[in-house]
């Protein structure tokens, strides 16, 4: 069996200085100042794991432990400093997506745009399927700014679920959803996993992780401290 994701000896750090956008005057004054040593913040240090087809993996760890960074590295949004990431198949990611200045688009427009970004043909049938699944058929012509946070989250997650992926990377996507949709999404994710899709899922919700995932990846202080079956969640629940 070919692994879907193979991560080997992964390292990633960020420059702490200059995280925010600077004004021209600040840039000029910094240019002439002597303090040019940049501080490095190591986020991931020597992380390795393999994810196989059909695995539903919960990625857990306290805030700031590098969960989102790891997903962005796998999604190839970031490049690693050291180590390799091999992925097999089509990858779809939904990592802290805010559609801020596009909130004047309609729900149908957003579905079309996101499907295009996910390399999926936005056919009318697929758009209809997404609308029905997200229970937003009555809102297809509504503007995004007219939807609640939960509805927007429902919409973006449903598009990702229908983007015909082999690997799905999700970051806290069910936190604002109601119980009914949450159950529907879990059932759908499980059925997709049975067909071979690999899912890595970040959440701080113990019940959600327990009901969805087969394995857990635990991050603590830049390191992977466990990659174990879900039955061992109790041992690591302090990291949620």
């Amino acid at each position, binding site marked *: 069996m070919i692994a879907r994701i193979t991560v080997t000896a992964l390292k990633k750090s960020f*420059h702490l200085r*200059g995280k925010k*956008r600077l004004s021209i005057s600040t840039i000029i004054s910094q240019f002439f100042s002597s303090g040019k040593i940049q501080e490095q913040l190591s986020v991931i240090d020597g992380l390795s794991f393999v994810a196989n087809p059909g695995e539903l993996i919960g990625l857990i760890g306290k805030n700031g432990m590098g969960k989102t960074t790891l997903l962005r590295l796998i999604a*190839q949004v970031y490049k690693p400093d050291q180590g390799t990431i091999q992925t*097999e198949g089509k990858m779809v*990611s939904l990592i802290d*997506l805010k559609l801020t*200045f596009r909130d004047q*688009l309609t729900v149908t427009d957003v579905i079309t745009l996101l499907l295009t*970004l996910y390399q999926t043909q936005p056919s009318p049938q697929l758009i209809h399927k997404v609308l029905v699944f997200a229970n937003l058929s009555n809102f297809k012509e509504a503007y995004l700014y007219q939807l609640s946070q939960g509805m927007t989250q429902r919409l973006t997650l449903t598009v990702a679920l229908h983007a015909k992926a082999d690997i799905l990377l999700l970051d806290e996507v069910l936190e604002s959803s109601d119980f009914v949709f949450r159950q529907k999404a879990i059932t759908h994710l499980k059925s997709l996993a049975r067909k071979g899709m690999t899912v890595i899922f970040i959440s701080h919700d113990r019940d959600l992780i327990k009901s969805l995932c087969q394995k857990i990846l635990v991050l603590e202080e830049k390191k992977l401290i466990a990659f174990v079956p879900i039955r061992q969640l109790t041992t690591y629940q302090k990291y949620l």
Partner: protein
Amino acid sequence: MLKNRTTTKPSARTLNSLSPKKGASTSSKASRSAIHHFLSISISLAYYDLKVRHTNTALGSLWYILSPLVTFFVLFFAFKDSFGSSIPQYPLYLVIGIVIFNTVQELLTDSAKKIFENRFLLKSINFPASTLILALCVRVIFSQIPILFLVILVAVFSSVSWLSLALLYPLVLLMVLLLSLGASVVCSILGVYIADLGNAIAFSMRLLWLATPLFYNLDQKSGFLKMINFFNPFYYLLHFSRELLVFQRFSGPQFLLLVLLSGATFALSIFIWKHYYQKVVERI
């Protein structure tokens, strides 16, 4: 759907085919698919950018005409008896200067905020970020349709062949886009580092608006202004465009100069993009 095997390393991102025996055909199929994906994203982003701009507006795409039209009338009535008296086909000369300048200004100012504006999208979904800049160019091409209508109207008023103008206008637009594309890419990267780049561009463009012969002819001006314009790419772009559209004269050396200049800025922008894009994504 593009199915691939991807390896990400610190220095390189490679795309390996799953079936080595069919290497060449699979690779060309993957390239075609990647180009199709690239273009479809650019067109979609441009379309939805236009849609967002016109949602709930009363005049919609008329705004594209309104600004150059009002500027044209103000400048025309202010200068037709002074600068305009010695410039043949002054109304067309003026309107072409205004629309080309506005187009370049729009490209540069909008590109400065493009990456920062799309930071959540770029950090959530892996798609080619350069499509954002291409989408901006596509949007500008769409917005030229009503502007061309305005230029044709002035051509008819000036008794200049509107048909040849309409046929030659795409070549001018192509030169505008080629010349601006490299600068737009650089601005999009710099815009992430410098918060007030938008203001700096707006200020520089205001100075250039006065220094470039938009509503006057350079022959009417002093040696100092001529020297400034010797280094001003807008001057060559405007001169080439006016020669072509107003007098239907093709200036070969200027065309070559503009192509070389566009090529050089584009090559520089690719170097900057390749070197800085990853740093930029981690910064936003």
